[in-house]
């Protein structure tokens, strides 16, 4: 799955990225990949640091931040589209919880992240989230953040 986003405002230099996930099984780390909108690689690697505690799916709590520090600063330029992809090795199982933007409840752009949305691979194509009986929703985000560099 991935978060796809198009940068608005000013250019930023990102030194690291983190995502909140739950580890369900296995001892292998999650893989993260930052790429341009056309799919060309910018940075990738396995999540650093200790693995999140193993927690059953659906349990309360247990989600943890895992991150990747880029070898060098990655420029996120305004108007350009980027994807942050997450993938789990075959020997481990992770799950992620999207965060709804709340646009259907009247939340305005000023209160949320309006520049992207979460997607998952449905067959061979990327598609918006299926949630609460609705399909292809684009009003949810993966829980991610970038650490910026000056």
């Amino acid at each position, binding site marked *: 799955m991935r978060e796809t986003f198009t940068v608005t405002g000013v250019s930023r230099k990102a030194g690291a990225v983190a995502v909140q996930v739950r580890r369900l099984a296995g001892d292998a780390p999650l893989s993260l990949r930052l790429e341009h909108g056309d799919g060309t690689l910018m940075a990738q690697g396995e999540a650093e640091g200790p693995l999140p505690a193993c927690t059953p799916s659906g349990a*309360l709590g247990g989600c943890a931040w895992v991150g990747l520090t880029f070898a060098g600063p990655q420029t996120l330029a305004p108007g350009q589209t980027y994807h942050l992809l997450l993938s789990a090795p075959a020997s481990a199982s*992770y799950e992620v919880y999207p965060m709804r933007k709340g646009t259907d409840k009247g939340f305005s752009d000023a209160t949320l992240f309006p520049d992207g949305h979460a997607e998952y691979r449905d067959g061979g194509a990327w598609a918006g989230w299926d949630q609460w009986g609705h399909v292809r929703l684009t009003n949810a985000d993966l829980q991610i953040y970038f650490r910026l560099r000056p």
Partner: protein
Amino acid sequence: MDYLFLKRTSRPDPVSAVLPPGFRLVFWRPGFRLRPWGFPARPFLLWGLWHRLNVYATPDYGMALIYEGTQLVHRTCLLPAHFRFPFMVRGDLQTAGIWTRPDRRGMGLALIALQGSLCRMADPERTLWYMVREDNQPSLRLAEKGGFQLFGRGRKLPSRAFGLLGAFHITEVHDGRAPQPPPRLPPTVPGMPIR
């Protein structure tokens, strides 16, 4: 695991079964005691506390108990509307905690307790709910015998406000439509496996 939600009015039925000799039906209500003597703390002490603390929408919490001599052989609990069943409205009741001692099953005690409860709680405007795991066929048969009709399907979802308790939400009504009005959505959402 999905749950099935059935409902009916609480207008009492003609009583179709009577207790065998030596059995008696008692309708218990919390008073000084929060649970009947000998009942385990979980969940009955909690349910009694909710009654005492006015967590329920109405003060109708109670149980139909059937004794054989001095031995409890059946219980049917009635829970008023509260946060764990957000689809219920004030005045509604939910049957819960139905249990029959294994060696007294098949005698129709649950149906007798249910009909006794309806006589006690009769109110034509009141909806009585029955929630059952979809794989619990004996309980489903009891509900149908008791005049309940399938209303919808749903599941237990975690509740941020009430920790591990969670709440039961109807996600689909019997004809496949989304319930109208839709149930209050839980604060958490289903996770998606990362591939």
